C-alpha cells in the first residue's frame, strides 16, 4: 500500500471489542486453561506429563516444570507443537518477571504464562507440574485471577496423581501431631484424582481394594472425580477443560444440586480432613452469607480449617442461582444463571477441610436465612 494512492482502500468492519494492538482481548473462548498437576514422587506424575506431551492428540500443549522458582527466575517448558508441527516437542525457557512483585496484581508466574501464550501462535492448554510442593493451594491462589483482569490464562483445575499401591500407606503416615501428610492436601484440593498403577493393586481387576481406595479418597474430598489408570494412560478430554474455577460452569452446578447424592463423609482416619455438606431450603440474605463465610475463612471462627468450599445459593430477592467457590481464604459468590422452573431452589454448600463441625455449620448458616 502506498501513502499517496489515489483510490481509497476498502474500509474494514470494526469488531465489537476493542482490539489490543498486539494482543487480542482474551475472553472465555480465547483464554488458555492452566492445569496444576500434583502428586507424590513416584506416583506417575511425570508419566502423565510425558503421556500428554507425546501422544498424538493434535493439541498444542505446554508443560511447565516448576523446578526452580523465583530465586532462579526461570522455568523449563516443554511444548507439544500439536498438528502444526507433527506433534514435535520443543523445549523452552520461561522467564519469571523479577521485581516489584509486591505492588503488581499478577504474580510473576502468571505474567510469565501470559507471555508464553502471547509468544506462541496458538496454545490449547498449559500444564503446571509441581515438584516438591506439598500443597497446591498457594498455586491455586496465584492462578485464580479476577475475571476483571481478562487474562489470557485461567486456572482450569488441580489434578492429583496418586499411587494406588502406596496410597494407603501414605495416608496413614503421620509426621507429627499437627501436620498432615501431603497426600491429604493434594487430595483435598484436587478437582480430579488420577488413581494410577491400578494394575499393581489388583492385577486380576477384581476385588474391592480399588473401591476401598476410592472411598478413602472421597472421604477426604467427595467432590473430586476419580479416574483409574495404568501408567497414567488417561483420556485427555477427561482431564482438560474442566473449568473448575469458572463461576458459571454448568456441569458443576448440576452435580451439586443432585439431591440424592450425600456428600458428607465420615472421618475414617484420625486425620480430621473430610468433606461436609450443609443444606438449607429457605432463601438467604447475601450480605449475611458473606459475613458468615468470611468469619469461617478469614477469622477461622469455630476453629475450623477450610481448604475448599463449593456451593449453590438460593438468594433472597433474586431469580438467579448463585455459586460459591473458595480456596483457602479466597472466595467468590456470583450469580450464575436463572433458576429453572422445575428446580428445587435450595442452598447447598460443600466444605472440605479439617476440624469441620456439621452442626455448627448448619446452625450458623441458618442465621443467614431471611426471616
Amino acid at each position, binding site marked *: *500500500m502506498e*501513502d*499517496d494512492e489515489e*483510490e*481509497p*482502500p*476498502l*474500509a*474494514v*468492519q*470494526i469488531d465489537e*471489542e*476493542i482490539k*489490543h*494492538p*498486539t494482543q487480542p*482481548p482474551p475472553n472465555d473462548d480465547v483464554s488458555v486453561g492452566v492445569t496444576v498437576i500434583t502428586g507424590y514422587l513416584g506416583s506417575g506424575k511425570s508419566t502423565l506429563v510425558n503421556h500428554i506431551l507425546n501422544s498424538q492428540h493434535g493439541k498444542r500443549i505446554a508443560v511447565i516444570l516448576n523446578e526452580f522458582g*523465583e530465586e532462579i527466575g526461570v522455568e523449563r517448558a516443554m511444548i507439544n507443537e500439536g498438528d502444526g508441527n507433527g506433534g514435535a516437542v520443543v523445549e523452552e525457557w520461561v522467564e519469571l518477571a*523479577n*521485581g*516489584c*512483585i*509486591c*505492588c*503488581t*496484581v*499478577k504474580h510473576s508466574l502468571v505474567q510469565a504464562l501470559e507471555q508464553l501464550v502471547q509468544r506462541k501462535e496458538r496454545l490449547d492448554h498449559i500444564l503446571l507440574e509441581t515438584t516438591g510442593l506439598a500443597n497446591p493451594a498457594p498455586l491455586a491462589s496465584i492462578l*485464580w485471577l*479476577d*475475571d*476483571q*483482569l481478562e487474562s489470557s490464562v485461567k486456572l482450569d483445575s488441580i489434578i492429583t496423581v496418586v499411587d494406588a499401591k502406596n496410597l494407603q500407606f501414605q495416608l496413614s503416615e503421620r509426621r507429627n501431631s499437627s501436620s498432615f501428610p501431603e497426600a491429604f492436601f493434594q487430595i483435598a484440593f484436587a478437582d480430579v484424582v488420577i488413581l494410577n498403577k491400578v494394575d499393581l493393586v489388583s492385577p486380576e481387576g477384581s476385588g474391592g481394594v480399588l473401591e476401598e481406595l476410592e472411598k478413602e479418597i472421597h472421604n477426604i474430598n467427595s467432590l473430586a472425580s476419580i479416574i483409574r489408570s495404568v501408567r497414567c494412560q488417561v483420556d485427555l478430554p477427561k482431564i482438560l477443560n474442566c473449568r473448575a474455577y469458572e463461576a458459571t460452569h454448568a456441569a458443576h452446578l448440576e452435580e451439586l444440586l443432585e439431591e440424592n447424592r450425600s456428600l458428607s463423609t465420615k472421618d475414617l482416619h484420625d486425620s480430621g480432613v473430610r468433606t461436609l455438606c450443609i443444606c438449607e431450603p429457605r432463601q438467604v440474605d447475601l450480605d449475611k452469607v458473606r459475613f458468615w463465610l*468470611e468469619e469461617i475463612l*478469614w477469622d477461622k471462627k469455630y476453629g475450623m480449617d477450610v481448604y475448599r468450599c463449593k456451593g449453590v445459593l438460593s438468594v433472597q430477592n433474586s431469580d438467579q442461582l448463585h455459586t460459591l467457590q473458595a480456596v483457602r*481464604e*479466597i*472466595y*467468590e459468590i456470583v450469580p450464575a444463571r436463572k433458576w429453572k422452573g422445575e428446580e428445587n431452589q435450595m442452598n447447598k454448600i460443600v466444605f472440605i477441610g479439617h476440624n469441620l463441625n456439621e452442626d455448627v455449620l448448619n446452625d450458623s448458616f441458618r442465621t443467614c436465612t431471611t426471616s
Partner: protein
Amino acid sequence: MSGGSDVADTTSLSCARCGKPAHLQCPKCVQLKLPREGAAFCTQDCFKASWSSHKAVHLKAKLSSLGTGTPHEQNSDLLSEGWQYCLKKGQARTPKLPHFDWTGELRPYAISSRHPVPGHIELPDWAADGIPKTEPNSDLQHVVEIKTPDQIERMRETCRIGREVLDAAARVIQPGVTTDEIDRVVHDATIAAGGYPSTLNYHFFPKSCCTSVNEVICHGIPDARKLEDGDIVNVDVSVYYKGVHADLNETYFVGNVDEESQRLVQCTYESLEKAIAIVKPGVRFREIGEVINRHATMSGFSVAKSYCGHGIGELFHCAPNIPHYGRNKAVGVMKAGQTFTIEPMINAGVWRDRLWPDGWTDVTADGKRSAQFEHTLLVTKTGVEVLTGRLPSSPNVFPWLNA
C-alpha cells in the same frame, strides 16, 4: 450502579464525515495502529468521500514515528556526556533508542548516572545490590501487620517528610524543566531530611522517584525530556526513614492543560478521596476497588488494573493487596493499626497497559493519558488518618481545591 460491564471499552463511534453510527474503519489506520476516533465511517461511500483529507493522518503518523527532530536534539548532547537509555529494569543501558511500537507520542530519553547517598543515611537492604532480601520472604506478605504505637509514630514522621519532599518537587514543575531535574530535587530533599529515597535501586530502579508523563500509567523513569506546556506529570515519592517507608504521589499540570486532562486529573483525585472516605475498621479491602471504579466509570474513564495499593511499614510493599478495580477477590477487612496505600490510576481511554523496553515504564495501550494520586493511610479506631496528607504549606496546584 456498579455491576454490568464496568470496562470503558464499549465506545459508540460516529462516522467522521456524517456523524451517523460507524462500523467501518480505514484499513491503513488499522495497519498503522492509529486510533479509531476520526477514522471510523458508516459506509464505504463516506470513507471514499473523506479519503483525500483523511489520508493526511497516515502521513502524520509516519513522520511522528520517525521521531520529531527537535526534542531528541536535547538528548544528543547528553548522550555524548554519558547519559544513556535504560534497559532491563535498570540493569543495563544503551546509547540507542530501543525499538518498540510506542502507543502514544511519548518516547524515553537518556537518563543520568546514579546519584550518591551520604554515608550517614540508613539504607534499606536493596540499596547496595538492587535486590530486596527481607521483603520477599517476610510473613508480612501474607498477614496484615497491626502497627505498634512506636511504629505509628515513626510512620507519621516519615510520611511527613515524604509530603514535604513531594511538595518540593511540585514547586519546580513548569514547562522546560526535565523530569531528571525533578528527580534531583526529590533526591536532594530526601537526603537533606535524613531519609533514603526508597525507589533508588529497588529491583534496580535507577532513580529516586517515578515521574509519569501523559500516557504513562506509573513507574516512569526520570530522564532528559523537558516537560511541555499541556503535559500532565505524576511524581511518586517514597522515603525510608527511621526504619519505615512512606509512599505518596500526585499528578500535576504543566502550563496550560486541555479540559479533558483537567477532568481526568480531578476525577482521579476524587476517586482517591472517595476511597479514603470509606476507610475504617471492619470495611473490606475489596470495597476500595468498587468505590474507585464507580467514580471513574461514571466519568467515562477506565481503571488501570495491573498495579494495586499495598501494605507499607518496615517493608516497602507487603500485605494487603488492594486492587483499584471492582469485583475483585481481595481478602480481609480493615483493622485499627493497619497502614497501607491506595493509589488509583485512571485512564482516559482503555484500561489495558503495555510495558516499555526499560522494563518499568507502564503506558496505556491506546496512548491516551493516565493520572494517579496516592496516600499512605493509617486505620484508626473510628476511621482513618491520612499520614501523607497535604499541609497548609503545600503548593496550591489543584484548582478544584479552591472552589
